[in-house]
């Protein structure tokens, strides 16, 4: 069952061939699966999540740059995720509901996801990699393709412009509309630790 699933998944996963997709390295299928994984790692709530922030754009860009040595890991890992979700729920990862997706990711995180598909790259190491890359894409510098419109920095109430001595851009067209720190601060309550 799992082996069939890998074969099915691997078909369209011929990557980095410069096809007509918007991606530099990932296939459409890979990108959709990866986006679904990233969105569970940093889900949208009152602030946008990893998908909106462009974390997949970040990872895809790095896979033709500094992370090019990890291309194979991503290919195998995404195929493995597909296979594991098929084995657990009979559906591809992107078709699962969030609770089912979390169950798949938890089984990878705990190293419980096994099988042929995880022989070359372990589920745990692949998931760890995606977690750290998602954090980089969401909280890192927007210049690398993620953190669209500095969304995470706004969430953390980090003032912009980031460089002292330069005038703020009064005509900013950011859709998320940055509010100044004082009003943002008073809007937050501090009850989480109670």
């Amino acid at each position, binding site marked *: 069952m799992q082996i069939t699933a890998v074969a099915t998944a691997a078909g369209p996963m011929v990557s980095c061939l410069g096809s007509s997709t918007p991606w530099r390295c990932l296939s459409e299928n890979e990108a959709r699966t990866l986006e679904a994984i990233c969105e*569970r*790692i*940093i*889900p949208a*709530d009152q*602030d946008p*999540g990893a998908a909106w922030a462009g974390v997949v754009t970040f990872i895809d860009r*790095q896979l033709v*740059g*500094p992370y090019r040595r990890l291309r194979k890991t991503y290919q195998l890992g995404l195929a493995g995720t597909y296979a594991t979700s098929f084995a657990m729920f009979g559906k591809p990862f992107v078709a699962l509901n969030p609770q089912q997706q*979390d169950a798949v*990711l938890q089984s990878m*995180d705990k190293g419980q996801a096994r099988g042929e598909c995880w022989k070359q790259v372990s589920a745990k190491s692949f998931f760890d990699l995606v*977690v*750290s890359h*998602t*954090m*980089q894409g*969401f*909280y*890192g*510098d927007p*210049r*690398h393709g993620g953190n669209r419109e500095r969304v*995470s*920095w706004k*969430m*953390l*109430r*980090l*003032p912009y412009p*980031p*460089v*002292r*001595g330069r005038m703020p851009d009064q005509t900013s067209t950011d859709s998320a509309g940055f509010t100044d720190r004082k009003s943002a*601060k008073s809007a*937050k309550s*501090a009850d*989480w*630790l109670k």
Partner: protein
Amino acid sequence: MTLPRVNAVIVGAGAGGGIVAKELAEGGLTVVLLERGKWYTAYDCRKDDLRNQRTSVLGCAFGPDDDRYRRVLVGADGQEHVVLPSDGAYNNDAACVGGGTFSYGAMAWRYLEKDFRMRSTYGAVAGSTLDDWPLSYQDLEPYYTKAEWEIGVSGDDTNNIFKGARSRPLPMPPLPPSREHLILKAAAERLKLHPFDLPMLRNSVPYNGRGGCMRCRWCVGFACEVDAKCGTHNTVIPRAIATGNCTLRTECVAKKIVTNDQGRVTGVEYFDERGRLAEQPADFVVVSASATETPRLLLNSQSRLFPSGLGNRYDWVGRNLMGHAYSGAYGLMETDTYDDLGPGASIAICDYNHGNPGLVGGAMLCNEFIRLPIHFASLSPPGVPRWGAANKDFMRRFFNRCIAVHGPVQEMPVFDARVQVDPRVVDDWGIPVARLSGARHPQDLVVANYISGKAAAWLKEAGATMTWPKLPGKGLSGGQHQAGTCRMGNDPKNSVVNRQCQVHDVPNLFVVDGSVHVTNGGFNPALTIMAIACMASEHIVQTWKGTRMRG
């Protein structure tokens, strides 16, 4: 290609080499300063959260690059791994003019008197080559002062009752306190500790022709956009070149030190910026390439008279590699403490550097440098999942309400924590790479645990509702504080250089960088490297004027 002879070739334009270049050039010697990296300026400050010298996941902004450099790391299990500079296991230090001082956090510590007498203070430690330095704090004091005034240090250590006597105050006042600073200061005073404004190689006011810090959040690991950080790249190296006696050659990678049949060095073979092999003859050679690259170059310089490499007659080159076992705690506060004022680190205590019951050494404790979101993303406390909605919520609620206090635990030197040259792996120039092996002394982890507890107590007094520890791993230590691999000592049988940084059995070869440290203090080592460079240069210039290194 053999070039015209000069008096001195210096390999490495970092904290040590930059100072030696200036002192020698001003002393009238002709100098060639070789640097494997480029000469960056404030203009090259990209403020890139993922590509800098602190967070190098997308590469090291100021070198070395992942394409041409590699090292071999031998893990605890004996497994060999080829590691790239952007990987923490490489134990990278920047490759550029200024070396680490171009992008460092710039703490400017003098080691304490006891840090030079560790063996006398604590006795022998099993499994460690712990020893005294062949010089004292008092011997080095004038040179600490010289470095502080020539490179530029701000701060105020008046309230540090543990410091050795200083002959001159610091040249610049500290920066105004941040919110975090005020909270921690009051808490430390309530605990009867002795907090003070930690010294920084950073202009707080205009000094030396450059402006003061603008307090941005991209500090440690980044180039300074307003050139307020003081390194050798913007102080002594320009002065060396201005004498007309010093030629700086960038993107030149040293291959080996050349020796003659009389057992003296005659120059340096290196690959220039176009990859051509050149030989620079010189009357003497100074190696200032860092505690990893210096032993690598000495070990790669084998010859008939020196079959195991230069200075390595008794197998001490590359031994005792150490850095610091960083330890501390994080605390969550009830109100916002983050006020977006760099450089962040500003308040310190030396109450736990020595005199910790039953322990050898200790660490200075201070608040952490200003935190970028990407740093906070990996810091979640126990109980907060590292991914998912709860992690995101933690980030959102506590990014502005977390204080970190930590310090560099003084490590016990270990003979088998070492740098060798790998028998198989070479870099892009075909030069055998550094091979790192060994582990920390178990005592370091005990001290780290103790120091972490003290950090947590400070944070709790400051109002932290929850704290969690930051503890070092067991593995090999080196990194940006790397030191110890060409130990200074009086006995050639258990050291590599004498107290003047002269290699014991090669009179015209010197090592001037962190390699010569016998122990590494519970402090960031940059100012000590600079002070030793001032001291060694003075000796070199005097010797030159007497014997021309021919004696």
